């Protein structure tokens, strides 16, 4: 439904196109979002998320590469044809961008007016949308009278008015409190399931990815560095940045006192400290006690957490493996052979 092929975007500062101080916000991005999927792009601020999503409906025209939405190559279009194509792509924004001079009803009616639809048809189209987002009773109010969450609901109704095939969400929940975020995400998921709408969203919040996305891409410094199913991403991120995001999200870091004692290289008198992530069958297997029995090492659990990511369960643990060097080596092999993600964080000297 959405396909970005080798899309780059370079900004040239005003009056200079010699490239001396050009900024490349997006580098050779390739992305494919199939119909009906919710795809998240996560990254830190300044990573190029906004540029990426703006390239999809050509609010930013890519410097190179092509963008195809619903079988139509947008990068080949301009003027009226591009405006026509944009009717089939809805977009919502972090700061809602509702017109203050228009009522809720008139805001939702705006895209239909732009398409030249008749007044009576507009009325028939707008009211069900306000019902859908639960704001039918607010039709005659002005945006200033609404809460942030209600404003975003109006913006969603507005984005859906032209019956788009694709919805772009630009940090749609970043200005909202956690509770409101939850209800907006609920609404987006509902729309995705009911209307089969393909959604591309950008965010810096793992919570958003966790609760509604099917797939996720990680963007860093203008490059898409990783792409995975959400369940896989949360159990085994493939990049350091992915792990950082996950650890920040899960708040699973070794205690500070331990970090200070960690050494990079093992010595005959040290124990490995490992971060274990297990999902699927591994969650229900009593691995720790088996480890003690079969490998003869003691396991000291420093931190542990069980998260439910969509339909999958994810267990995370930071543990110290205590025993002779050859035994702990054996234990690590045992863990790795049992479909676990094992990451050795470092080694600590024995206390004794």
């Amino acid at each position, binding site marked *: 439904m959405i396909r970005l092929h080798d899309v780059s975007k370079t900004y040239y500062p005003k009056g200079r196109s010699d490239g001396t101080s050009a900024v490349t916000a997006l580098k050779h991005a390739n992305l494919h979002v199939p119909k009906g999927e919710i795809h998240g792009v996560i990254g830190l601020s300044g990573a190029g998320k906004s540029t990426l999503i703006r390239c999809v409906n050509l*609010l930013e025209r890519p410097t190179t590469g092509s963008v195809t939405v619903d079988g139509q190559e947008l990068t080949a279009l301009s003027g009226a044809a591009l405006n026509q194509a*944009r009717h089939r792509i809805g977009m919502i*924004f972090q700061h809602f961008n509702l*017109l203050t*001079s*228009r009522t809720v009803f008139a805001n939702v009616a*705006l895209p239909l007016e732009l398409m030249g639809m008749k007044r009576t048809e507009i009325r028939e189209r707008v009211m069900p949308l306000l019902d859908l987002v639960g704001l039918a009773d607010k039709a005659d109010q002005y945006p*200033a009278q609404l809460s942030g969450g209600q404003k975003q609901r109006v913006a969603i109704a507005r984005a859906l008015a*032209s019956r788009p095939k694709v919805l*772009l969400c630009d940090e749609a929940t970043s200005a909202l409190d956690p509770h409101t975020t939850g209800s907006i995400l609920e609404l987006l998921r509902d729309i995705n399931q009911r209307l089969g709408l393909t959604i591309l969203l950008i965010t810096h919040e793992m919570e958003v990815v966790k609760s509604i996305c099917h797939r996720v891409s990680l963007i860093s410094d203008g490059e898409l560095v990783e792409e995975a199913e959400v369940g896989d991403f949360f159990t085994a991120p493939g990049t350091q940045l992915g792990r950082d995001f996950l650890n920040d999200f899960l708040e699973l870091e070794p205690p500070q006192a331990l970090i200070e004692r960690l050494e990079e290289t093992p010595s005959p008198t040290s124990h490995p400290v490992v971060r274990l992530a297990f999902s699927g069958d591994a969650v229900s297997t009593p691995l720790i006690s088996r480890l003690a029995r079969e490998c003869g090492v003691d396991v000291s659990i420093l931190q542990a957490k069980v998260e439910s990511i969509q339909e999958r369960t994810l267990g995370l643990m930071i543990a110290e493996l205590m025993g002779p060097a050859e035994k702990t080596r054996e234990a690590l092999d045992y863990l790795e052979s049992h479909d676990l993600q094992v990451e050795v964080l470092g080694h600590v000297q024995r206390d004794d």
Partner: protein
Amino acid sequence: MSSAMIELILEATLDTLYMVAVSGVISALVGIPLGVLLYVTRPRQILAEPVLNRVLGAITNIGRSIPFIILMVAIIPLTRMLVGSSIGTNAASVPLTIAAIPFVARLVEGALNEIPPGLVEAAQSMGATPWQIITKVLVPEARGGIFTALTVTAVTLVSYSAMAGAVGGGGLGDLGIRYGYNRFNPTIMLITVVILVVMVQGFQSLGDYLVRKSDHK
């Protein structure tokens, strides 16, 4: 006070209102579109035309930098051409209009500049044409600011029109100079000033009302 005097004052008041109304309406009709044009042709705006923008900006600045009293005299040939005379209320309305157009344009441009860029972006994402963005987003969203601009312009025109009176434009300024100053009649002087004050208050209140009505922020 004689009834002739009262009639004179009444006539002068209507003359002033006439000049302000004519120049106000025409300068709004020209100045608002010019202000919009100044805004949308800016670099990175929806109809970016840097050269046109610079030319329009320069013309506007020239118009705004000429003192009104000089402008009035300088364009007498143009005034004669347009209204057939260089004295009277119609003649005074020509320099008033020309002085007010760039004034309105810059104020309108400023009002448009207050609109968050996200609103234009949202309209673009819906496939709005530049004309649709102007008529459905920019102008409605700036309505309050445009009313403020027109109020300031009307008030300025009241005082400019009094100046126009000094060179035979008619109106309250003319009355104040000829009867109040030249014939040293402090009552007439006081009355003209009071009427001008009331007029300005009236325009301001009307403007404030319109701004309040159009503001839903």
